[in-house]
């Protein structure tokens, strides 16, 4: 059983969580059509350490996990806006 640690509810089986995709920042509103299309569709598909949205379903908590998509090892999890804290 794989485990993931919700920053609010603690360590839980992965089945309690929903993957929300990579944390991404939208381009500015005045970007070009091509930039916008790239933002809408393209993803950083290559493996590496990524920040991703995860959702703890029983409590409705969205948080961010820093995870290596090659090894599936989670470095840390934190609430949005609390990157600096442990």
């Amino acid at each position, binding site marked *: 059983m794989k485990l993931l640690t919700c920053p*609010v*509810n603690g360590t*839980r089986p992965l089945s309690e969580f929903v993957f929300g995709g990579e944390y991404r920042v939208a381009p500015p509103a005045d970007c070009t059509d091509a930039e916008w299309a790239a933002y809408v569709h393209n993803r950083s598909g290559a493996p590496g350490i990524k920040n991703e949205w995860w959702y*703890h379903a029983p*409590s409705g*908590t969205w948080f961010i996990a820093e995870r290596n998509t090659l090894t599936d090892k989670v470095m840390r999890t934190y609430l949005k806006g609390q990157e600096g804290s442990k």
Partner: protein
Amino acid sequence: MQTDKFITPIAHAFSAGLGSWGVINGMQVVTQFVDKDVEEIRKELLGIADASFLGKFGVKGRHAAQWLQDQGVDIPTQSNSWVADADGNLVLRLGGSEFLIEDAPDGNLCEKLLKADAKRAGVYLVPHVEASLVLSGSAVQELLVEVCSIDLTRAALGTQEVIMTQFAGVSVVLIHQDLEGEARYRVWCDSSYGPYLWEFMAGIASEHSGGPIGVGNYFSL
């Protein structure tokens, strides 16, 4: 607030002609499943009861804690913890800024809060119609390990901890309550999953010679 048009969300799990029905707090519920003596034995081993008729109230938002305190409600100071007031009403803090309040059987705190003025920025009411269950008995841990992956023993849970996890794939809120020398678990889940979870847990309870019992075994009504 409730009328006798309400029926417990567990109703779909009950076959026709099962036990005796009654109305508690405006909700039709099964008050007794089998003979009193058998229910007593079930309770000792592994009892499961439907407490969905208890009044519920929810509020969330960044000023929800302050608003509740303004209404004279004692709130838990820690995230994911709970307190009971002198009348036995439960106040659960779900995460940091959301609260679930459940009345004691003879309580009317929820009705009072529903009437209070909550039109304030940062205070949002959350309707609650969960299925609400009670579990107890010497074999209750056997049931919990079958439905849940995390350690829910008394030792693992702090005395006032609120756990949000999944039972048999269904999201639940859970607390452990010591009452009158007796240890019991309280479980809330979305009412649409209530019958499924009830059937699942009542089935396990039966395997341990326990089973469904009237809620009067837990609360004086």
